C-alpha cells in the first residue's frame, strides 16, 4: 500500500470531522480570531474546508501564487509568523482531539510549513 497522507488521515471524512472543531478553536483563539470573524460563517467554514484539505495533503488547485493572493489582504492587516504558528497549533490540537497519531500530525505541520512564505507574502 502506498497511501498518501490525505488517505491515511481519512480523506474527505477527516476534513469534515475536523472542520468544525478547528473552526471553533480558531474563533476562540484571541490571537487570530479577528482574521476569521466573517459575517458569513458558512462561507468562512467552506474556506476552512479548503484549507484543511490542502493541509492534509489532499487534492487542491491552489498554487503558491494563489496562497499569496488569497492572504494578501490579511498580510495588509498585519498577518505575521506568530499568527501562522497559532493556526498550525490549533490544527495540531484539532488532530489530537480526533486521535490522529503524532507522526501524521507532524507531517501535516511540515506540509503547512512549506506554505509559510507564500501565506505571509514573504
Amino acid at each position, binding site marked *: 500500500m502506498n497511501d498518501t497522507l490525505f488517505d491515511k488521515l481519512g480523506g474527505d471524512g477527516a476534513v469534515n470531522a475536523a472542520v*468544525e472543531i478547528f*473552526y*471553533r478553536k480558531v*474563533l*476562540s483563539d484571541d490571537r487570530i480570531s479577528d482574521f476569521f*470573524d466573517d*459575517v458569513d*460563517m*458558512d462561507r468562512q*467554514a467552506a474556506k476552512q474546508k479548503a484549507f484543511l484539505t490542502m493541509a492534509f495533503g489532499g487534492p487542491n488547485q491552489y498554487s503558491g501564487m494563489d496562497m499569496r493572493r488569497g492572504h494578501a489582504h490579511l498580510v495588509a492587516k498585519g498577518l505575521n509568523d506568530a499568527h501562522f504558528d497559532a493556526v498550525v497549533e490549533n490544527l495540531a490540537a484539532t488532530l489530537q482531539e480526533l486521535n490522529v497519531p503524532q507522526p501524521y500530525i507532524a507531517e501535516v505541520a511540515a506540509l503547512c510549513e512549506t506554505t509559510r512564505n507564500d501565506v505571509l507574502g514573504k
Partner: protein
Amino acid sequence: MPNLTFNGDTYACAENQSVLDALTGNGVSIPSSCRNGICQTCLMRSVSGTPPLDSQNGLKETLKAQNYFLACSCHPLEDMEVSLPDAGSARIQATVHSIESLNHEIICVGLHCENPLEYRAGQFINLFKDATLGRSYSLASVPAHDQHLKLHIRKVPDGRVSGWAHHNLKPGDVVEISQAVGNCFYVPGHPEQPILLIGTGSGLAPLYGIARDALEQGHTGPIRLYHGSRNPQGLYLVNELCALADCHDNFSYTPCISGDAMPADGYAQGRALDVALADIGKLTGWRVFLCGNPEMVKTAKKKAFLTGAAMKDIYADAFTLAAA
C-alpha cells in the same frame, strides 16, 4: 466590457460591476435591499444571455430554469438583455385581508392570495410598494393552520416600505409579493432534537411560525422560544405564546427584557441570547433558529456555534436594513 439592455436602452457594465450597480448608476430604478444575494428583492430575468451561476445562488430551480438571477450578485461575462420579473411567474398578487396592531410599533398584515402561496413557516416574501421598491418580511403563519399569510411589520423611522404599510395599507388593497424565499424553516426528521429559537423585535415573526409548525408536525423534543426586547412594550403575542406553552409540555416561552424597566414575574432580565445560554448551557446537539436584529443574529450565530451547535443546525435570518 459587456453591454446591458434594459427597456430598450443599452448601458455598459464595467468589470466587477454588478448589473444592479450598472443600472441604478445610470438612474434606472431596480428594487434592491440587502445587496448581498440573500433577500432576492433584486430578482431579474435575462431575456438573452446566460446569467453567471453565482447570480443564481439560492434561487428555486423553476426560477433558474427561466434565467432569473439576482442583479446585486450578477457580474456579467457577456452582453445581456434583462427585464424585471413578470407578474404571474415571479411576482404574485395578494389582497390585504386584515391589519391588526401587535404593539405600538408592529402591525400584523394578513394577506390573501388567490392561488395559495407555497411556503414553509419562517420563510420570507418580498412585499412591493411599487414596481421598484420592495422589502423582505418573514411569514409568521403556518400553511396547515392559517388561512392567510401573516407578516409582522415593524415601523422603521422614515422607512419607505414599513411606513407605507403602517400608514397607507388597508384591507382590500392589492399588493405584489414575491414567492417565498429562504432556508430558515423547520425540517421534519429528528423529532426528538431540542430546538432553540431566539428573536428580537419583529424577529418573532418567523419563530412564531416555525415553533407552531414544529408542534404541528409532531416534534417531541423541547422547543424553547426566547423573545427579547429592551422594554415590555416591545414584546407582543405574549398571551398567545403563554397559551401555547400551556397546551404543549415540550414548548416553553421566555420573554426577555434587556432594559432597566423590569416588570412583574414571568419575564427574564437580560438579553434574549444571554438568558437562553444561561438557561441551557451547552448547545451540542441543538437546532438553533435566530431572527431579527443583525448584530444579535451575528453574535448569536457565533456563540451558538462556539457552545457546541453544529453549523448545519444553525438557521438564521438577519433583518438587515437596506442602505440609505
